[in-house]
Each structure stands twice: as structure tokens, then as C-alpha cells.
């Protein structure tokens, strides 16, 4: 389009809050009991971090890649694209993130997930647990139905935030590149929720800013 500069964020969000949150409800109803598999994936990721088995980082990267690919296809492409013409571009970015996770985390082994004793690692764990445990409750806490919940590996926001938490735990410079798409998504979804006047609009942008700040601190410390 040659008139992009004339649009504001509100001009690009052409659906109502009711339609947007009902999208989650219909999506969850449609894919149940896929949620149990996603829950299992979250448990496996936590166990890999805690028990540190051989190839644990590779397993985490595979599960994360699967989550991004699934959310890109099932949520963004199949469910979100019919009401938002940019959603297929978002889906493409999610597929790219899945590919990057496979390349850096599985094929090249350039990322290692490990619970260290740094402040960055501590905050990473908090962000991860927040994405897995607190985000599903935000819909209910803000007055919406449980069926409209954000869930890791099922919906984009919880998946992006969990990924940022895990990348804060990661060793290896590749973690920086793997943060680009999740951080971008955090700002995109923050802007969307802001236009929709959702109370949780600032959660993901705050998570992204925190991740960027911690990453820069880490890079400066390493010189």
C-alpha cells in the first residue's frame, strides 16, 4: 500500500474487543483437548530446566519451535487471519521463529537453556512462570471468561512471553537473534490490546522491555 503513512494503529485494528476475545473462546473449544498436549510440553520444558538431562536444551528448542509453528498455523492463520488482514504476515513471522529455533537450538546447538544464578536467570524464571501460570488467569482476572485464556503453545502472547523467559536463561549469542520476533510480537500485541482498551495491554510490552534491558546489561558485562 502506498498510503501506509496515513494509518494510525486504531485504523489497523478493525475488529471489536468482543470479537477478538471470542476468537480465543472459539479457538479453545475447537482444539480441545490439544491443551493437554500443550500442558505436557510446558511440564517437559520445566523438567528439562530443573533436571538438566542430556540434550535437554535441544528438547526445549524443539518444543518451543513446535509451539511457534502451531500457534502460527492454528491460531494466527486459521483463526485470526479471517478478521485481520495482517495476521498471515504474523503467522509467517511465527514460522520463521520456529525455523530459527530449530536451526540455532537443534541443528547448530548455539543455544543452551540453563538455570544460572544471575539476576537475568532469576528474572527469566519469573517471566517463564508468569507466562505459564499467570497469563492463563489474566482473562479471568480482567473480567472475561476462562475460555478466553492465553495459554502457552496454544496462543501467541503466552508463547512469546514464555520464549522470552527461556531466552533470558539461555547461553549463547544466538539468543539475541531469537529474541527479535518475540519482542516484536510483544509490542504488536500490546498495541492491539491498547486499542481494544484491554487492561492487560502493557504486560507484554513491559516483558519485552525488561528482556531487552537485561540482555543489554548482560552484553555490557561480558564486554
Amino acid at each position: 500500500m502506498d498510503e501506509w503513512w496515513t494509518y494510525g494503529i486504531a485504523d489497523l485494528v478493525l475488529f471489536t474487543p468482543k470479537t477478538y476475545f471470542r476468537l480465543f473462546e472459539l479457538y479453545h473449544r475447537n482444539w480441545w483437548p490439544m491443551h493437554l498436549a500443550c500442558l505436557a510440553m510446558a511440564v517437559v520444558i520445566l523438567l528439562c530446566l530443573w533436571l538438566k538431562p542430556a540434550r535437554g536444551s535441544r528438547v526445549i528448542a524443539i518444543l518451543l519451535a513446535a509451539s511457534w509453528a502451531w500457534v502460527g498455523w492454528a491460531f494466527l492463520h486459521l483463526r485470526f487471519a479471517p478478521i485481520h488482514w495482517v495476521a498471515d504476515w504474523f503467522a509467517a513471522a511465527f514460522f520463521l521463529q520456529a525455523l530459527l529455533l530449530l536451526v540455532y537450538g537443534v541443528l547448530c546447538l548455539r543455544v543452551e537453556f540453563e538455570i544460572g544464578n544471575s539476576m537475568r536467570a532469576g528474572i527469566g524464571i519469573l517471566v517463564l512462570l508468569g507466562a505459564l501460570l499467570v497469563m492463563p488467569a489474566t482473562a479471568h482476572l480482567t473480567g472475561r471468561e476462562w475460555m478466553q485464556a492465553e495459554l502457552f503453545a496454544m496462543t501467541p502472547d503466552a508463547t512469546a512471553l514464555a520464549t522470552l523467559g527461556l531466552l533470558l536463561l539461555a547461553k549463547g549469542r544466538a539468543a539475541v537473534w531469537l529474541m527479535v520476533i518475540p519482542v516484536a510480537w510483544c509490542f504488536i500485541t500490546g498495541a492491539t490490546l491498547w486499542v481494544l482498551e484491554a487492561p492487560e495491554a502493557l504486560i507484554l510490552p513491559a516483558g519485552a522491555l525488561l528482556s531487552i534491558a537485561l540482555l543489554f546489561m548482560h552484553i555490557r558485562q561480558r564486554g
Partner: protein
Amino acid sequence: MLAALCASALVPATRASSREKLISKPIPSSGEAMPVIGLGSSRTFNVGDDTEARDTCAEVIRHFFDAGGHMIDSSPMYGSSQPVIGYALDKLDRSSEVFSADKVWISAPDKGRQQMEASRRYWGVSGFDLMQVHNLVSWREHLDTLYEMKAAGNIRYVGITTSHGRRHVEFEEVMKTSELDFVQFSYNLVDREAERRLLPLAAERGIAVIINRPFQRGDLIYRLEEHPLPGWAGEIGCANWPQFLLKFIISHPAVTCAIPATSQVEHVKENMGACYGALPDIDMRARMIAYVENL
């Protein structure tokens, strides 16, 4: 489509309860009568494949038609709004009553026809009454295509659109230099910039005017509903703020119709109420402005 509109011009639609005459205005290029309230579909009809929400939209359209409405406006930009309109028209079996207004919105001029054909299939109509170039995207090339389509009888009217005060200078240039049946832009009681140039120019050039975002996406109503409707609103047949706002818009001599969007039956009934009763004259319009500005 044409037959239904001609019939409505000859036999004015009435409110079953009051038998009041529905207010319509002529489209300058043809003289065809157009009810002064249409139905927008941005955001409100973009409900995806949610059957429950689609059925609610169909009810909105049913009440719109029942109240004498004709024009429904959409765009490929509005997500699933076009398929939802098609679903409703098919469900209600009232495609023949609609004055279909849609837009072409694609940068690549050679893909314009393809997009318009996709839109037509979504609507399930034999052809569009009005096709507009959305937000002036590739307007030179698309207008050439629309003129060809009009000459071939595929569409009846040609127009251009903008919204929210976007690209008014260029918009004015297109109005001056092109043969247009319709223009569409934003205008309301608190945003009257269009009164300076666009509305007078439309009147001078004999172009029908569709007004979008009459309530500033609902924000204007939320703001005004904190205040009482003036007692004299009844003199112009206004029972609520939406009717007050709509009557102000449609009473401008250059305005042909306004297209408020809603997904609620109660709201479409309120909006269509503005199609009936007296229209404010110039003194009343000044009084309406003064009242709102002093709130």
C-alpha cells in the same frame, strides 16, 4: 437492486407504528432516491466464522431493511465483513433490497478487477451498485477500471473514499478532476472540517456524499451520553444522542447519507430513527453545535 430503489422512491417507506415518511435524498448524477441513513460494516461485521455473531449481524441487517434502509457499505480491508454481509443477505433472502456499496483497496492496479470479483462473490450479488476507490489507493488506475466497468454495466456508480481527515488535499483534487458519482469521507458534529472545502465542492460538482464515522467509532456517543439531551431535541424528532448526531449530519444540504456501523439491533433501530421526522434547519444546526460545544 434498481427496481427496489425505484419502488422505494415512488412509494415512500413508512414506520409501521407512525406511518411517517422516510427521508431520502436524490443521488445527483441520477436522481435516484437514497434513504439518508445507510449501514457501515467496518469493525462491527468483522466477526469471522462465529455463527452466533453472524446471526446477530443478520438481525441488524433485517431491522435495517425493515426500517427502510438500503445502502450497506463495506471494503476488502474490513476482514470478514464482506462474507458476513453475504451470509446475512442469503439468510434473509433480501439481496434484492440492498444498495451494495463496496471498495477496491489494492496497490496493484491490475489486481483490482480480481479483488472486486472476490468481493462480489462474498456479497452474493450480481453486481455492485457503487464501487469506490478506498482511501485513494492507486486511484488513477482504479478509476479507469471503474469507468470501464460502469460503461459495461457491471457497476452503476463510481466513487472515492477517505476517512478521518486523511489526504483531503489530494481528495479535493480528485473531486475536481474526475467524473465521480459519490464521495465518502468523515464528518460529524465535532469534526466539521469537511464543511470548508469538501462539502461545498461536492454540491458544486453534483456528487453524492456518504459520511462515514458519524460517531467517531462510538467515542462521540460515549462522551455525549454523560450529558442530557437538550429538551428541544424533540423538535427535530431526536429521542437520543445517536439520532441527534445523525440528524446534524444528514441535514447538511450536500450530504446524501450517513453510514453508522453497529452490531446491535437496538442501535440500528435508534440510527434508523434519524430517517424520520423533521430535519434541522440552518438555525437549528447552529443551536446543535453551540449546545455540544458548551458541554
